[in-house]
Structure formats: C-alpha cells, structure tokens
C-alpha cells in the first residue's frame, strides 16, 4: 500500500521530466527561497538558522577545552555532527542515531574539514596540554527536502560567526574564530530520470540517488558522496558539476551578505 503512492508519484515525475518541468513549477537547476540568519541563539558561541523552502535547520557552535592527541600535540579539533530527531518529520523515529543522520553529519563534516578553512594549529592553547575542540551541532527542525545542503549552509554560517569563549575558560579574551574560506555543498537528486537541484520533499519521495558536492572558494572539490539506490554516468556527473559551481558561488554570496549585515 505504501508502495502504491510512490509508484504513481514516480510516473507523474517522469512525465514532467519529459517536458523538462518540475512538480512545483521550478526550473531544473532552480532553488527554493533561502533565508539565512546568524547569531540567533543565546548560548551558541556561533549559531545560524537556515530556512530553505520549508526545510528549517539550526546549527550551533560550542567550544570545549581538551588535551590534544599525543601524535598532534599542537592541534585542536573540529567535529560536526547532525541530529535527526523525530521533530524533523513524520517519518523520523526516536532511537539511536540512524545511518541517515550519521551520513548527514559526516558528509557535512568532511566538506568543512577537508576545505582546510580552520587551521587546527590555531586552536592550540598550550602545546601538548590544552587545545580547543570545536563542535558544530546541526539540528534539523523540519525536513522538507534537500536537508543536506541546508545543513551544510547552516554549519558553515554558524562556524564563520563563532566567538572563541576564552574568558569563560580563563585563557584570555574572547576573539572571533578565524575561518579562512566558505565551503559550500550543492546536492543533486535524480527525479523522473534526470538530475535536479534542490529537490522538494515530494521529489525526494519519488526520486532516486543523490550526489552531494562540496566546493571550496576556488571551485575545488572537498567532498563527494553518492547516496541511495541508483547509478550515474561520468557525463551526468560533468553536467551537475558545472551547475554545482554556479550554485555554490551564489550560496557563498548569501553567507557573505549575512556577514556584511
């Protein structure tokens, strides 16, 4: 029974794709409305709220003081993780972290980490003794499609506004965390047989595999991930890779504009 509706939905999405149309009238590479707000949570050392269509994400940054790993005595650490709690939607269930939430957190984490936007050595307080651990927590309040891109946007925006709480930990004055670049994720989902950008919840329900691409300021790749059932060809990848370049430039501007406020 559950299988029936998706079947009809898939047929409709395939029909629309033949006419290069989408179920909500958008163009193939067109995003829904996106608003970004930063510094919106009292206790976060950095915070951001992203409303992307009907998808709503909060990200918050916290700092911990810890001892460095023995093999990297003068490096702090960064960790980004996502919680996909049952508030996020009807289909989400309570319980231990699902594979979906682990994947979400790790893909966003890799994009930020591998971009090198944080200099781990700058997070050292006393070599071999005390370093900062930076924790970015992503909280999905509403998943109505394209959660990965919205989460990645919230995470980097929160990180870029973070204040290192040195006073609270008694190691000097608070200062702004230095973040050298703005890695951005753009994701594509196969809907009706061809890839589209920013799928809605309905398109995800009737769609196939998705590809997550994180690009740095110079357009280099920092993270890739294919999720869900489906295959793609190198040519298909080349096409979405070009789109990803331009979408990431636009989203990066959104972050910059917010910071300019």
């Amino acid at each position: 029974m559950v299988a029936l509706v998706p079947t009809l939905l898939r047929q409709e999405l395939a029909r629309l794709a033949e006419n290069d149309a989408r179920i909500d009238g958008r163009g193939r590479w067109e995003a829904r409305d996106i608003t970004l707000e930063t510094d919106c949570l009292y206790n976060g050392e950095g915070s951001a709220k992203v409303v992307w269509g009907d998808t709503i994400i909060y990200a918050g940054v916290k700092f911990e003081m810890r001892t460095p790993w023995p093999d990297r005595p003068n490096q702090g650490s960064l960790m980004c993780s996502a919680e996909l709690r049952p508030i996020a939607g009807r289909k989400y269930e309570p319980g231990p972290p699902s594979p979906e939430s682990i994947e979400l957190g790790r893909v966003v984490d890799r994009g930020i980490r591998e971009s090198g936007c944080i200099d781990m050595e700058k997070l050292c307080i006393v070599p071999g003794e005390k370093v900062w651990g930076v924790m970015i927590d992503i909280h999905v309040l509403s998943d109505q499609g394209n959660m990965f891109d919205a989460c990645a946007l919230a995470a980097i925006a929160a990180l870029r506004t973070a204040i290192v709480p040195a006073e609270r930990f008694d190691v000097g004055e608070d200062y702004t965390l230095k973040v050298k670049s703005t890695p951005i994720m753009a994701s594509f989902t196969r809907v009706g047989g061809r890839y589209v950008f920013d799928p809605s919840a309905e398109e995800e329900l009737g769609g196939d595999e998705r590809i997550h691409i994180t690009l740095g300021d110079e357009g280099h790749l920092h993270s890739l991930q294919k999720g869900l059932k489906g295959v793609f060809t190198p040519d298909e990848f080349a096409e979405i890779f070009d789109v990803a370049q331009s979408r990431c430039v636009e989203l990066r501007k959104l972050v910059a504009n917010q910071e300019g406020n």
Partner: protein
Amino acid sequence: MGGYGDVKLLREDGLRLDGRKIDEMRPIEIEAGTLPGADGSAWVKHGLNVAVAAVYGPMEAHPRKIQRQDRCVIDVRYNMAPFSTSDRIRPGYNRRSREISKVTAEALESVVICERYPRSKIRVEIEILSAEAGTRCVGITAAAVALADAGIPMRDLLVGVASGKVEDTVVLDLDKAEDNYGQADLPVGILPNTGEIAFLQMDGDLSPDEFNLAMEYNFKAAAEIHDIMVDALKRRYEGGEN
C-alpha cells in the same frame, strides 16, 4: 537548587538583578504553526529560552502493546539541543530529559480529550534551542499551543510557569542566576480556566506559607501567559495557513 547563600540576587531597591519586580515575568513571545511539515507546531521565546514544539498525529499506535483500547497515548520527547546551554550537552541518553518527558506526557494526557482517539498515538516533540532556566515550563507552553494548532481537543490550554525563592523571598519566574543560586523552584502546569493543576514539581526549601505565595504568583502569571497563547493561535488562523 544551588542554594549558595553569598550571591546577591535582589537589589537595594527591592527589584531583581534584571530589573524585574518580584512578581514579574520575563517577556514572552509565541508563534503558532512554525513548522510546515508538522500537524501542529509552536515557537516560544520566554526570556532567553527558546523552545519549539511539534505535534504529529493522532496516528495508529504501534507497536500494539502500547495501544490503549479506550484512548490515545501521548508520546513526549523533551530534548535540549547540544548548543542550548553554556556547556555543550552530549546528544543521547539523559536521565533528566527522560523524567521531564514522562511527567510532561502525563500532564498533557490530563488535558487532551484522549478518549476521542482510541488505539492512537500523538507524538509531541519539544526541542529546547536556548536555555535560560525554566525550560520545562516553556516546553509545556509550547506543546499546548502546538496541540491546539493541530486541532487536538483539550479541556483547557495548559500553561507552564514557575515561581521560586531567592534570598528568602518568593519570586515569580526565576532567570538563570536565580535558578543557579536560589533556594527553591516550583514549576507547575496550570489550566487557567478550570483552576486545576496538571503538572507539579518542586525542589529546594519552601515553608508552607512560601509555597502558597509561590502558587498564587503562578496562577496569576498563568492567566497572563494564557492570553499570549490565545493571541498566537488567533494570529495563526486569521493569517491563514502560514
């Protein structure tokens, strides 16, 4: 309660550190219907607390063994986001959250007309995004608005509110410093129209007279918060589906 005697919480002029009178609430803002995918939802800012609640259901209760033949069950999850407090909270199992979730669920089951939905389940998700003392009360208020937004019939709009004691003085609605260094906290869930109580916890030290005064403050504040809740619901339905 922390109960440290040496932190001044009342000023010479009788007001509190943040300038409030002893029976004055922190400012409250409420918005109903903030989460598009939920059957009902609410956003509540109370002082620097921010809580979001979502309602999903009524839906079939499963597994079977949780079903009640004559009513629905209400499944509440109260959760503090990792970034909601000064020190990060590790996600996962947490005894405090489990207890609050249990007694909050029982309070909501006391006001929802559960008999209307036999064998069903209503999921209530309460997420604290920012915490500044009193989050369980803010969560209850948010949950009640979200249930109303979902169209679930209730005997009354449940209001979460707390009074406490600082420097041997009963005060309404403790803020963070007052919670950390105060002498007692009395969070309750009140049905303003019936004058009944559906949620009650307390810790610290209160004489019987102090308890009665704290309860009086709570009932007075509950009436005020109730008006703000009703307002939010009116705005929601006048404003249409957004």
